[in-house]
């Protein structure tokens, strides 16, 4: 079962990611991104990272994407005009594509652990909220605190940048 899941999701992911990059309409791109994120959440499930799958759906597909769409609507972003001539872009597509064809198959050979196969349920866990939480509040507690500060900064930032102009 797992290979089928994987391949289906993998193909879907790649297609939607390409869609994200390729569609000229930002709304379409955003939708593609949502699809990508959700599919990735599904992959997380196949990887037994249930909590993260949930977070992925809620935070990304939910919050972040809403933010994106909100901004798109707010700014009324139009379709991107075609660039002429597109040769530069073609060159880059070829380069990156070539890099992918050339480099990606080699990835597996780079890591000694890459050939490892695990079947469903053989994971050592760590996917649960409880375990993550334990780690977050013990070993990684300073980072958790730091993340908090980070979010504070981001909040302040958004408030500062998007507040109403006092004079206008």
């Amino acid at each position, binding site marked *: 079962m797992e290979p089928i899941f994987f391949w289906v999701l993998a193909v879907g992911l790649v297609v939607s990611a390409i869609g994200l990059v390729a569609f000229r309409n930002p709304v379409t791109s955003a939708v593609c991104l949502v699809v990508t994120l959700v599919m990735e959440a599904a992959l997380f499930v196949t990887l037994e990272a249930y909590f993260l799958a949930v977070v992925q759906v809620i935070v990304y597909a939910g919050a972040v994407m809403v933010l994106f769409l909100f901004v798109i609507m707010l700014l009324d972003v139009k379709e991107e005009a075609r660039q002429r001539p597109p040769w530069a872009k073609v060159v880059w597509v070829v380069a990156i594509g070539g890099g992918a064809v050339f480099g990606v198959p080699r990835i597996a*050979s780079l890591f000694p652990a890459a050939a490892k196969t695990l079947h469903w349920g053989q994971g050592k866990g760590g996917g649960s909220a409880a375990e993550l939480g334990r780690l977050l509040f013990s070993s990684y507690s300073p980072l958790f605190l730091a993340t908090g500060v980070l979010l504070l900064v981001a909040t302040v930032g958004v408030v500062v940048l998007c507040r109403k102009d006092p004079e206008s």
Partner: protein
Amino acid sequence: MIAYAPYLILLLPLLAAVSIRLFLYPFPRISITVSTLACLGSFLGSIGLLLFSSSMGEVTAPALPWIEWAGFRANFGILGDPLARGMAALVSGVAFLVHIYSIGYLEKEPCRSRFFAELSLFVFSMLGIVLADNLISMFIFWELVGLSSYLLIGFWVERPAAGAAANKAFLVNRIGDFGFILGILGAWALFGTLSFADLPSRVAASAPGWAVTAVGLGLSCGCLGKSAQFPLHVWLPDSMEGPTPVSSLLHAATMVVAGVYMLIRVLPILEMSQVTMMTIAWIGGLMTLLPALIACQQNDIKRILAYSTLSEIAYMVMAVGLGVPGPAMYHLTTHAFFKCLLFLAAGSVIHGCHEEQDIWKMGGLGKRMPFTALVTILGTLALCGIPPLSGFWSKDAIFAATAHSPGLAAVSMAAGFFTSFFMLRMILVAFGGTPKNDAARHAHEGSIFMTAPMAILAILTILGGLLPVETYLHFPHTEGHEPWTLWVSLAVALAGFVPAYHFYRHATQDPLSLPALREKFYVDEFYQRVFISTQDAFARLTDAFEGWVVRGFLVRGSGVVARASGQGLRLVQCGQVQVYAAVFILGVFLLIAWLWRQGVIR
């Protein structure tokens, strides 16, 4: 302390020069007095030295330290041998007379102080050459003589020609000194000493060879420059731009013969190499003739005398080259008297004619300046070697030495013929006939300051032949006269008068026109075209290379390249964030590619 007394001879003129330069400059009369007295002091000192030491043997004073360091000695000591003493007396004596003469000659010149300071400097330097006991010291004074000559030739600073002549004199001398210093260095390397006293023994100890020849030739280069021998003779005629007393003292009587003096000093080295000696002899031999020829077509009274000087010095050089320094010194002495006399007379003429130097614009001066005419004729006869005047005796001694080399005898006697010719030409044109212009018509004798020295010199010219120069200088006496040289030379000299009398008896303009002679065989032009122009062309080329290629292209170019590459690199910075991202990603790819190429990633 008394041992240092001989230095007074040297230092008096120096002190005079320095004190004039520093303090007495604004007071010409005091300057003149000081300078003249200093020269007199030197003269008296030299005479004293001459008399004192002839009874007491050689006098040497303790050396004055200059550099004595790390095995190298270049101190200054006085050489008290008869040659030096005699020469010192001669130099200071003539110089004193010229001082006196100058008082009269330059009575209206506002810069008299400077003149006398420079004259004193010259006396100092010249006495230094004479008294120096080693080559380095001699070279030092050699250079200082060059400087004083330069200053005196260029005395009339506002005359462009004077400046050019002064430069030429100095530079040509410098070229000679180039060889001289190399010769000195070579001598030092070969013989390990530069002291004249040690030289004979050291030289005898070393085997002759090409090195000795080279050293000898190098040293003789100094003579070629200072004594104006071929090929460095071109400066002397031009130096006549200086005031006439200068020409008389420096460029006739004393300075120019320093080369001969120096050759005699280093004769032990020269004698080691037959090549050197022959070279010197032949240069001298040819130089007796060439200037004599040139002088036949010159119109400037001083230039005529200058060429004659060249010719006469060449006799001395030839004599040295023939290995007979005695006659050379003998002729040097007599020449000093009569040539100085001739120049002073010429100065008197020029002075009388209000700075006119062209003989064709004079004429009839014999009547208006009888004394000058008389001494000129006396000098001429001495110069031409007519007995019993002094020149006859000394020239005869030199001719005698050529008896064994017919070639040299032929050229030098031919020179005698032309000497007679052009001297008579000069006398006839300048003193004979009728005045050609107002200046000549109102010519007059100069003051007593001018005539007295001439009178003294005239007496010396007549009696100078009697001076026992060779004996006194302890040169080995030359063997008995070979009569044929005596008679032939005399005959040739007398023969020279005939055509001159024929051509110039009543001439108002030159009946002969020989451009090659008038233009001095085009040597100056040759030098100008070949050496100076080439050198200047190279100089301009070098400068252009430096300016355009080195400074302009290489140096500025590297700046431009740096700036341009800066501008180029800026173009990446186009402001497009996507381009930046692309560069970033390119960087990552490059990094990965590097790792891959290193073989760490497969």
